[in-house]
């Protein structure tokens, strides 16, 4: 065999390997690409399926669906006002509690806490996010609700008696379960999300900025209030919105403690319902196309609301990332 033939043989063998490799490579590229496209299709599919499923209800009620409070499976009159109200109010209560507490914990972790305690406390708070929502539900129903019923709610009713506005919010018999209890449980559930994002964005503040303020004689509180918070505003709001998105869609924990009443009570102690709790409770029992379709329409409303909130949160956090030069 002469040398020239030999190299030619290697040459063709190499080309075969190269051709095979590039074939495999484009196969891998398209395989992974189609997986990525599948994620998009999934979202499209969810929206499409929800719209399709809720068409009968939309045709029947139109926009009146959102403004009607009645929810009567027997006469087949369905309105989404009570669940929407419950969803919004429970989430607002949750945010009212979880936002200050979450920011407080973030301040504690970033500014006050000794270095060795940072990680354990962060981990402990994040473990709250790991606990499944059904556990919050069962805990809320058997532990928190009786406690509220026996001590806290009577105290609230007694304290606010005679105070305008607040008297109405805290009136009626203390059931234990209801809008307020659901809001409380939700606040514990969204706390870890708000805390971890707030802590992360607090840590993006350049130490130089903080130290200049300290150098001018600022107290820790003044540094947090006038340097850290203004610098991280977008991120903190993004974290809040993310928490809100969670609170709006939370299902099982709320289903346990909200009382499942399709009406809008003026009192926060009254039982109510949320969109997700109504679906969880009634879907398997719903008979008749209109009933099922109304519940799916509720799901569509929930999805649209959370989509808007979550998208806003992501856009805000993205903007922050860009600012940080990531």
């Amino acid at each position, binding site marked *: 065999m002469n040398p020239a033939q030999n190299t030619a043989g290697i040459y063709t063998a190499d080309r075969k390997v190269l051709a095979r490799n590039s074939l495999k490579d484009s196969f891998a590229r398209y395989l992974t690409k189609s997986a990525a496209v599948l994620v*998009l299709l*999934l979202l499209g599919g969810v929206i499409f399926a929800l719209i399709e499923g809720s068409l009968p209800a939309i045709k029947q009620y139109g926009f009146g669906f959102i403004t009607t409070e009645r929810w009567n499976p027997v006469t087949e009159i369905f309105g989404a006002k009570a669940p929407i109200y419950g969803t919004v109010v429970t989430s607002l209560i949750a945010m009212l509690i979880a936002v200050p507490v979450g920011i407080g914990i973030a301040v504690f972790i970033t500014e006050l806490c000794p270095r060795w305690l940072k990680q354990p406390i962060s981990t402990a708070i994040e473990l709250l996010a790991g*606990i499944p929502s059904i556990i919050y539900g069962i805990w809320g129903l*058997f532990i928190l609700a009786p406690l509220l019923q026996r001590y806290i709610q009577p105290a609230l009713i007694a304290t606010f008696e005679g105070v305008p506005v607040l008297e109405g919010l805290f009136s009626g018999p203390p059931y234990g379960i209801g809008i307020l209890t659901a809001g409380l449980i939700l606040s*514990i559930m969204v706390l870890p999300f708000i805390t971890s994002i707030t802590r992360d964005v607090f840590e993006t503040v350049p130490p130089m900025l903080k130290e200049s303020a300290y150098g001018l004689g600022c*107290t*820790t509180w003044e540094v947090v209030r006038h340097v850290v918070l203004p610098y991280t505003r977008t991120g903190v709001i993004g974290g809040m919105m993310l928490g809100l998105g969670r609170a709006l*869609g939370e299902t099982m924990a709320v289903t346990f403690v909200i009382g499942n009443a399709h009406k809008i009570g003026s009192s926060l102690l009254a039982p109510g319902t949320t969109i997700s709790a109504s679906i969880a409770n009634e*879907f398997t029992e719903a008979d008749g196309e209109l009933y099922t379709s109304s519940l799916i329409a509720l799901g569509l409303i929930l999805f649209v609301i959370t989509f808007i909130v979550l*998208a806003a949160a992501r856009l805000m956090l993205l903007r922050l990332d860009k600012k940080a030069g990531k």
Partner: protein
Amino acid sequence: MSATQTSSRYKRRKVYHYLAMALAFIATGMGLLALAWILGTLLWKGFGSLSWDVFSQMTPPPGESGGLLNAIYGSLVQTILATLVGTPIGIAAGTYMAEYGRNTKLTTTVRFINDILLSAPSIVVGLFVYEIMVAPMGHFSAWAGVAALSILILPVVVRTTEDMLLLVPDSLREAASALGAPRYLVIRKVCYGAAKAGLMTGVLLAVARISGETAPLLFTSLNNQFWSTDMNAPMANLPVVIFQFALSPYPDWQKLAWVGALIITLTVLTLNILARTLISTRKQQN
């Protein structure tokens, strides 16, 4: 400015400072208290009713004692199958975003949508699977439950895969390419190798996320009081059993609900902690 004014302002600032710090301290205390209280209750109530029967008996009819064997089996099977379906798709999508399609428009869009799916209400996913599987087939089935869970697992895996692959330094990729390795081999041998611990973490977190999911199973795999291995029939699972038993008026059922809650929580928290240690040992190595 007189001396008294200055000192009173100084006092006021100090008061604000101590007040704010005390509030931050209390806030942390509240968070930790909530965790301790919930876990404490679970351990107390769960261990109180834990017995061998739980793992050897079926879920009982009302008023009788029994166990959770069929529910535990159902949860295991559905979780494992969902992981087997969701993980490869998620890793593939994440690989595209970090490797082949980095900085493309498709990747930016998928990342945005994926982040939204990550926190989307899980009950909506249940409705979706009901619409596309349960309604056309005419009956609830374990396969529908698997489908719902794999949809929930997907965004978690996509997110961590992309994040972890982006952490692999480009110089490694370039070194492998310079040796003549085709792209798919670079990804498989170099990138996956370097990001192994991170990818495992993603899968563990995803499994932790779905093992406690209840809402999407309510109207997909439903529940089954009896032992069933038929994937085309309704199948029992721990979360839905806990839901039904906890809301029932029977003390035996409520006890089993607490035991189930304990089992799920311990599983989920173990997975979470395992995932964390995987990440932190990796950080120490670097």
